């Protein structure tokens, strides 16, 4: 797909996707459906898992389309993404699982 000829429609498409997902998140946050709010999964509400998945989808659109990473060479793509994919879940796992053991230690 050549830069010069593809127009602007793809930018607005991503805009509407981001806006739609954000609106959906806000509506979920305001109305909190009982099923999602009361079901606990992996230490937190199912609703929070929904938020995290929607956030990751939004992040994907921003990085791959707006930041153009989806159109870069594969080796560049993975050079950028792999450190985050490895280090961030590792950090979260260590920190969040340890937090439970420090509970109410003042």
């Amino acid at each position, binding site marked *: 797909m050549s830069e010069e000829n593809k127009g602007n429609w793809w930018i607005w498409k991503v*805009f509407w996707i981001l806006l739609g997902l954000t609106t959906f998140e806000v509506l979920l946050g305001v109305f909190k459906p009982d099923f999602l709010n009361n079901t606990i999964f992996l230490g937190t509400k199912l609703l929070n898992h929904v938020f995290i998945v929607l956030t990751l989808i939004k992040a994907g659109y921003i990085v791959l389309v707006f930041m153009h990473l989806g159109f870069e060479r594969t080796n560049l793509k993975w050079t950028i993404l792999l450190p985050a994919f490895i280090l961030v879940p590792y*950090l979260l796992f260590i920190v*969040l699982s340890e937090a439970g053991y420090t509970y109410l230690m003042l």
Partner: protein
Amino acid sequence: MSETENYGKAWQGDDKPYAASYGKLMMWFFLITDTLTFSAFLASYGFSRFKYPDIWPSPEDVFTHFPFLHGDHPLLFVALMTFILIMSSVTMVLAVNYGHKMQKNKVILWLSLTIVGGFMFLGSQAWEWGHFIHGDRGGIDTQTEYVVHVAKGEELSSVYSLMGVDGHDGHHHHFTKEEIVLGLENQSEYNIRKANGEYLTNEESIKYLKKNATKVLLGANLEDNEYGHRLFADYFFFITGFHGFHVFSGVIILIIILINVVKGTYERRGHYEMVEKVGLYWHFVDLVWVFVFTFFYLV
């Protein structure tokens, strides 16, 4: 071509394994480090939240205001801030896109709109900070370090309402714990909500405060936080502040780039890659906000 010839060529720097320019590559590497910084911030926020799961303030009790509107509107204002930032990301992509097409005037137009979006976001954040610092309901600190709130039955009320004053009249209020206890003794419809969300009766509240209360908290800063655990305010200031600092430096860089575009620097250079590199930074700021929005306001 022989081995030696190939070897010599590689060291002349002709190879471009990433097919990206030096500047763009370095911008990406900087953004990786920044990603890890913000991840560490949000992970440590998660740590504190998981450490104090039952007394951590609920965001919808904290961020409830919208300019010129009365009553509680949780999430509405941050939703607007998110919209502003997404919108400015879109104008940025448009500027980059017209840069590829070498259309100087359109780059100027969309870059300027991006800067306007950046200023709008910064203004919103200033308003949000102002409100957070001024406070809303007031709270009472107890010896166990947890903050309790004034309620009316099973609904949150405020210290101001209990004391019969308007919290937003611009005066600097100050109350002692004795005044709060007296207020509860005189008005039996008021009671308190403990940090874990449990509502006490009026008599229990008076007993609880006489035993535990240390001082009345109005507003939030790095030491006192009327909304709940003081770490909540600390993280709020650090995370949204660090993000706001990124937005601010982004706006400054955008202005410098805009001046260059107007002067025709990139026209003479033959390409608008500088706009693209700043665009990467600007989208990254939007990307971070998407996560801050989720983990600070939604979850």
